[in-house]
């Protein structure tokens, strides 16, 4: 095995890792009044990493014996994760500077999580996948409990930790079984062995281990019945951390899941597509119906993110023997994840703008916002309507692609599409609850709300993106072909 390391391929990760260490060290030498400087530093590091990633576009590289791969799929996700990192840093700045937080540690931890995200789409080996996933989660446990004085934040952290560790253990067990069965950690190799005839009696073992691994990832993407941590954790965490968990962390989970299911386990699709169908139906339905009851906006977004995970799981259930449909399903899932993250991140930016004056973040606290802060009120309306999937906004095209593959697949696909459209209609009624407060109801006072500039900028950026993709969805097609993985 060639052990020469391709440093160009891992340059973005190296830069980010360097930044992480730098942030931690520099923070130790900053006076309390200057702790905020960690953020510009972190920001610069992410920008540098992003530039390094962009220079890799068009390259196909592989290092660490094929465990780490740079291809179009990986680059798409890397660019996405780094962009999300920039936005999360922007919305965090004022929040952490004005609250009583350890700023340096926060930036250190969140960047570490993003390093995990960055590694995830390149990991083509069970061990790498596991390490990436843990690198995303472990700092997340601490971040969720970052509002130390608030018991709910402690609850958030501990819940996240316990659920996380449990599901990780189950997943690791599944991975070890797969390794024992196939003798390989490499995903492509695993896929090859599993496609061939397995020794008598080992079939069941393979299926069981797939089930274990899926369960682990189902926790990560907060699929029902592994979703219980999400609402409490989102609610208790600092809002920027909730934004991170709902977008980048969830997308990382999906990036890993996509590689596993489409590269390592496609041969067993007859076994796991029904599982994904059930997961998808339960996740979207329970997420939506519980969301209807919510009065607190972060919890609303948490249940919304659960419901949306159900839509993202749907394309997995469409996998069949037909490679054309598999490619479309793969592309639909990826597109959905990316669009979802932009909408949700924008919504969280608006919530962060509100968080200073409204501690409880009740939906009713948004009353009259259209007069007090018209820009973010319009932005929030756009995100909510887009999350509900109303054209001509980006969220519609995300759903459209899923419907398209589902109808093309026929059979179970049609049934799933029908369940999903009914769910979309249901979701509309809670998504509109927030615009309803902002626009239909008069607030207690008319005092203008001045959201932080950076937060407004993020909200406006996300709005522009959602509208632009909505009106001109062809923008999405300019992404590199999303099927590089599935084609193999």
């Amino acid at each position: 095995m060639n052990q020469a390391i391709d440093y160009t391929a891992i340059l973005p990760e190296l830069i980010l890792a360097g930044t992480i260490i730098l942030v931690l060290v520099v923070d130790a030498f900053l006076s309390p009044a200057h702790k905020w400087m960690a953020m510009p530093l972190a920001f610069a590091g992410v920008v540098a990493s992003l530039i390094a990633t962009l220079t890799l576009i068009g390259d196909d590289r592989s290092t660490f014996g094929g465990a780490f791969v740079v291809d179009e799929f990986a680059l798409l996700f890397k660019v996405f994760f780094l962009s999300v990192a920039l936005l999360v840093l922007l919305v965090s700045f004022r929040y952490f500077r004005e609250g009583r937080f350890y700023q340096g540690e926060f930036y250190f931890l969140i960047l570490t999580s993003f390093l995990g995200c960055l590694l995830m789409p390149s990991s083509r080996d069970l061990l790498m996948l596991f390490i990436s996933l843990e690198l995303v989660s472990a700092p997340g446990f601490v971040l969720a409990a970052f509002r130390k004085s608030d018991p709910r934040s402690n609850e958030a952290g501990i819940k996240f930790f316990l659920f996380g560790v449990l599901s990780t253990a189950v997943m690791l067990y599944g991975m070890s079984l797969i390794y024992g069965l196939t003798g390989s950690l490499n995903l492509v190799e695993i896929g090859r062995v599993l496609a061939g005839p397995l020794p008598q009696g080992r079939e069941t073992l393979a299926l069981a281990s797939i089930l274990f691994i899926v369960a682990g990832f189902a926790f990560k993407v907060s699929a029902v019945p592994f979703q219980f941590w999400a609402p409490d954790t989102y609610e208790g965490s600092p809002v920027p951390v909730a934004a991170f968990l709902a977008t980048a962390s969830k997308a990382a989970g999906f990036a890993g899941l996509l590689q596993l299911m489409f590269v390592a386990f496609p041969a067993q699709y007859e076994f796991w597509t029904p599982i994904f169908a059930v997961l998808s139906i339960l996740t979207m339905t329970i997420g939506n119906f519980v969301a209807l009851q919510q009065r607190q906006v972060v919890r609303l977004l948490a249940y919304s993110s659960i419901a949306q995970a159900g839509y993202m799981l749907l394309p997995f259930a469409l996998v069949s023997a037909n490679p054309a449909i598999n490619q479309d399903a793969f592309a639909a899932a990826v597109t959905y994840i990316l669009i979802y993250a932009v909408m949700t991140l924008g919504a969280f930016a608006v919530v962060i703008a509100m968080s200073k004056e409204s501690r409880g973040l009740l939906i009713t606290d948004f009353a009259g916002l259209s007069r007090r802060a018209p820009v973010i009120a319009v932005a929030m309306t756009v995100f909510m309507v887009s999350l509900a999937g109303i054209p001509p906004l980006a969220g519609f095209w995300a759903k459209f692609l899923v419907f398209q593959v589902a109808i093309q697949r026929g059979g179970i696909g049609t049934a799933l599409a029908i369940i999903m459209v009914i769910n979309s209609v249901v979701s509309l009624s809670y998504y509109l609850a927030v615009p309803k407060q902002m626009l239909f109801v008069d607030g207690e006072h008319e005092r203008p709300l001045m959201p932080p500039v950076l937060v407004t900028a993020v909200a406006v950026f996300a709005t522009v993106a959602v509208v632009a993709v909505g009106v001109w969805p062809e923008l999405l097609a300019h992404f590199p072909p999303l099927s590089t993985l599935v084609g193999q």
Partner: protein
Amino acid sequence: MTWENSAITITTLLPLAGALVIALVPRRYEMGVRALGIVFTGAALAFAIAITFTFDYGASGLQFQLDTSWIPAIDARYHVGIDGISLPLFVLTFVLSFLCAIYSWRVVPKPGKTKAFIGLMLLLETGMAGTFIAFDLILFFVFWELVLVPMYFLIGIWGSANREYAAIKFFLYTLFGSVFMLLGFLAMFFSSDIGGGAHTFDIITLQQYAASGGFSQGFQLVVFAAVGLGFAVKVPMWPFHTWLPDAHTEAPTIGSVLLAGVMLKMGGYGFIRIALPILPYGAQKYAPWIGLLAAIAIVYAALACLAQKDLKRLIAFSSVGHMGFVMLGIATLTTIGINAAIFGMVAHGLITGMLFFCVGSLYDRYHTREIAEIGGGVMQKLPYLGGVFAFVAIASLGLPGLAGFWGEVMALLSSFSPAQSLSTPLFRAFMIAGGIGTILTAGYFLWMLQRVNMGTLPEKWKSEVFGDIAAVEWVSWVPLLLGIVALGLFPSLLTDVTQAPVNSLLGLFGA
């Protein structure tokens, strides 16, 4: 970029451009915003009128076509065009929107927010107009859904007491129908085969494919149900109508006018443009059921109207009945029936739009819509307004010589002898039900006039000072009143336009 291929696109997008311009105007220039609303809807109307003059009434097929790439990734194209079926509804959209903009010059309902009000109205206009020119299913769907959000906010922000409930009910209901429609569109796409395994969303190509027998019978039955549900909720057909009385009653005046005047027509238009020609077998199989629901709607709406206490709600229910005649016409699958449907839709747009204007103006003065509260004597208090109201109500009940007559009588006539594949006795029964409906309709409108217009003026209103019809109101109403008379006296103004395309459409049914 020639006039031929850009005219309808420019016309449709002008209001959208207006909405963007208005978004940039500072909030304090209230009257400026209203003026901009009139300017942009007026410009769009001018373009629409120019189109009617350059339209070739002798030609068959689409005119002002533009078929260009839009979203190659999913094979959706920007294909727009206009023919005799679209043209009347297209022009109606711009006429009503322009008149609404003028009407808003005088008053923007509480709580003000003029910018948003006019902006949303313009956005709505683009969505409605786009629906009538789109010849790609995805483009059609985007325009179709584009109307939902502005209308939701128009009802929810500027509506009356129960507005939040009405707004969300409207949105959920119509979305529920339209998502199934979208699935139906996707099914059409994947079942179409235009050579080389390629599929299409193009409505014209799909019609040709359907005419060549491309879609199996079972497929048509399922997909017609899905697509028809979307249209049926929009029309609305009984029993999917329950969102309509709430939405109409709570909406601000111009919201009701546009809702009744144009948005309901999108449903009828969808049946004529998409469901019938692409799924002819499904249409034949479902036609008796559509006819039955239409007959029920006519009688049910008339009975419901007799029980209404709220003037606006009464007119809302009368819309259900009128749209019942439209659907009855469509269900016969005959040339005369479809012509009746289009005529009925245009006439209903003029008349019911006008009725909502009248009720809105009554409400502006009386601050109540309760028939008992008003208590009669409007003719004494407000002779002009009362007169106009009486005139329009009589037009609505289908008096010969006014626009409302032709749509109904042609629909009844067509159900006397429906398409050969349909059961004649059944449709004659529907015709009888429709006939009973017209009598009841006359009954409730006259009874309403008796309670509102006639009688003595109650004491409490005597001391109030109400201005009769204001100049702005006259300006926004006279075109509608003239239209009602003109179409009543010269129905061929409209039928000559629709005849040819309807004939070619019905070639599919061999009738």
